[in-house]
Structures are given as C-alpha cells and as structure tokens.
C-alpha cells in the first residue's frame, strides 16, 4: 500500500450553474485520513466523486496515486445474485486475492449471508455489504460516503475497526458524514466554510 497518495489543490466544484465550494485543498499520505463534514447539499458527495475522478473539478487539480474503492449511496451489487458471488465479481475486477471476499464479509459480520440474494438484505446489511466490497478490493484509497448510515452500534464499531486497520496498514481514508464517526485521528474539512458566499 506504500506510495499511495491523494492530493487536492485549490479545488472548486460547479454543479449545474451553482458553485458548491471552492479553494478546498487536502494532501493525504499513506496512513492519512480525512473527514468531510457539513449539512446536506453542501457538496460532500460531490467532493468524494471529484476525488474518485468521476467528476472533473471546475478549478484546481486532483492527483491520485494508487487504486480506489468507493462506497456511496448506491449498492452496485446484482440484486438477484447471492451476496458472495455479487461481491466476488468486484473482487475479481480488483484482482483481489482469493479469500479476500470471505475475509471482508467476516470483518463486516456478513459471514452467514453469503448465499442470500442481495435483494433480500436489510438496509444495514446492504450498507455493510458495500463496506465489505471496499474492504475486499484491497485498494489503498477508500472513499466512504456516509458509511455510518443505517448501521447499528455494533456495526459502527466494526466500521471503526476496519478503518483503523486500513489506516494502520498505510491506507488512505476519506469519509463524508453528517454524524460522528468512530474514525482515528484525522483531518476534518467542514465543507460549509468553503462556500463562495461565506468565503468571499
């Protein structure tokens, strides 16, 4: 995982004809973590998509070294497939080691749900399945959009453990959340401070 990095330099994001934020800078080296906070609609998800390269910045630059894993509000698992096979497709594309899916499912307490079709999962189980996809990918950079949504206390603790272990291994985590998350020491970016009106 060494050599991974994520660097945002003076980034601005335009959605439609509205400038969501500007002047956001962030540099994460291996073992770095950042938490994006702010109210709904402030642009947390857009910033994560910018980090992922799915959106182009309106101004500034985004530089990445290393593979990415993203968990957003969309499950991206085949509804009719058993959970283990649906996760296995992504692990295959990621070139993850055999057993990575099993280990990730165990880390998210999804062990017994392997043969269950994805559409039968509950809200919390879906969120955990998404996180298991991120863990199984073996990618050094994790982008987590509201990872704590729909998770109970025990699952939140599992999430905290997984993130802590990833950072300890030299991974990078960027999480966006409007609720407190059990993250290790990290940079916090309150996106509300970067709105054009308040920054002007």
């Amino acid at each position: 995982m060494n050599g991974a990095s994520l660097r945002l330099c003076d980034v601005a994001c335009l959605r439609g004809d509205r400038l969501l934020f500007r002047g956001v800078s962030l540099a994460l080296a291996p073992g770095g973590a950042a938490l994006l906070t702010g109210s709904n609609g402030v642009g947390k998800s857009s910033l994560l998509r910018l980090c992922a390269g799915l959106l182009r910045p309106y101004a500034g630059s985004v530089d990445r070294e290393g593979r990415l894993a993203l968990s957003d509000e969309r499950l991206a698992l085949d509804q009719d497939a058993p959970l283990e096979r649906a996760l296995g497709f992504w692990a295959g594309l990621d070139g993850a080691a055999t057993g990575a899916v099993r280990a990730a499912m165990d880390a998210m307490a999804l062990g017994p749900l392997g043969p269950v079709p994805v559409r039968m999962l509950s809200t919390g189980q879906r969120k955990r399945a998404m996180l298991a996809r991120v863990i199984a990918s073996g990618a050094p950079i994790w982008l987590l959009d509201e990872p704590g949504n729909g998770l109970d206390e025990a699952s939140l603790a599992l999430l905290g453990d997984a993130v802590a272990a990833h950072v300890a291994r030299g991974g990078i985590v960027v999480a966006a959340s409007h609720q407190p998350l059990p993250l290790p020491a990290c940079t916090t970016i309150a996106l509300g401070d970067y709105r054009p009106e308040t920054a002007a």
Partner: protein
Amino acid sequence: MRALRLMIARDLRQAWASAGLWLPVAFLLLVASLYPFAVGPDAAVLARTGGGMIWIAALLACLLPVDRLIAPDMEAGVLDQIALRGIGDEMLVAARLIAHWLGFGPPLMLASLPAAALLKLDAGTILRLEAGLLLGTPALAALGLLVATLTAGLRSSGALAGLLALPLAVPLLIFGAGSLGDGSGAAIKFLGAASLLMVAITPFAGGAAIRAGRE
C-alpha cells in the same frame, strides 16, 4: 483482458437471470406466425415476402431490450464502480456489446428457422437469410446498445429509442433484405460493411455518451 472476460460473463449471467433473452425470440416467432394470417396462406406470396418480414422483425426485436441494457446499471452505480477501477467506458461498452450479441444474435438465428418454415421460405433463401443474420445481428446488437447508452438517463426512453435507431437501421434492412434475392453477393458485402461500421463506432460513441451522462 481479464476485466473484459469478467464483465462479459457477468452481463451474460444477468441477461440469463432476467429472462431478457427470450423476448426477441418470442417477438420474432410471434410476427412470423401472425404474418400468414394477415396476407393469406398463399405459399408463393409468403415465400417472396417472408424473408423481408423476418428482417423487419429482427430489426424491431433489437429495440426490445434497450431499457435493460444500460439504465439499470447506471442507476445502481455499477457503471461508476467500473469507471473507478480505471476501466474505460469504451471497454465497458465493448464488453456489453459482445455479451449482448451472444445473447441476441444466435437465439435470433435459431428462431429464424421455425419462422422461415412458417413463411414457406425455400432452402436457398433460408441459407442466405441465416448468412445475412450472422453478419447483421452484431450491427443490430450494437444499434440497440448505442441507443441504450444515449437514452440511459432519460425518462420514457422507449419512444425516443425507436426514433434514434430507425434511421441508422435502414441500411441494414436494405442490404439485409436485399441479400435474400440477390445472386451476385453485392448486397451481403454491403451488409457486412454497414455492420462493421456500426460495431466499430458503438464502443466509442457509447462510451462518450456514458461519460457525458456522468457529469
């Protein structure tokens, strides 16, 4: 290359699970069995016009699966997850095209045999029909996929899909149906050329459409 193989396998499994494979086949057989009721059971008329009718049915059948080719995966975030892994949108569309043809072309060619029997086509015509479909179905699959990428983000995409596809489908229909009664082989060569063009531009045009839809 491994990514391409994995994506093709996944798309095929999805198509099989959603039973979308049978829709074009059922449509073709339905048209072939209704046609004799409409024009009468005169074997000579059926044999002369039946091949063209099968081509029209094949062309319209390529529009049936349009709404399940791209839009559901776009909404579910599958396309973004694939892009995130550094796999180009062109590669994604190419994989989809191969998987879609495998689930569309051969079943349609098989279904054309009973359809040809219903329409009293002779052996020579059936042979030319199958050869034409072998060359033409990749283009029909590409056309359906291209239209699916262009209309993926839109509501009521069905009607628009027809309007977008039909002008592009006209050369295929002319050369495909033309090859049935043509001894010189010119029409089938034109069909091959039109098909090659469609298949070659689809990954690039489709990839660009998906990228534009992401912004």
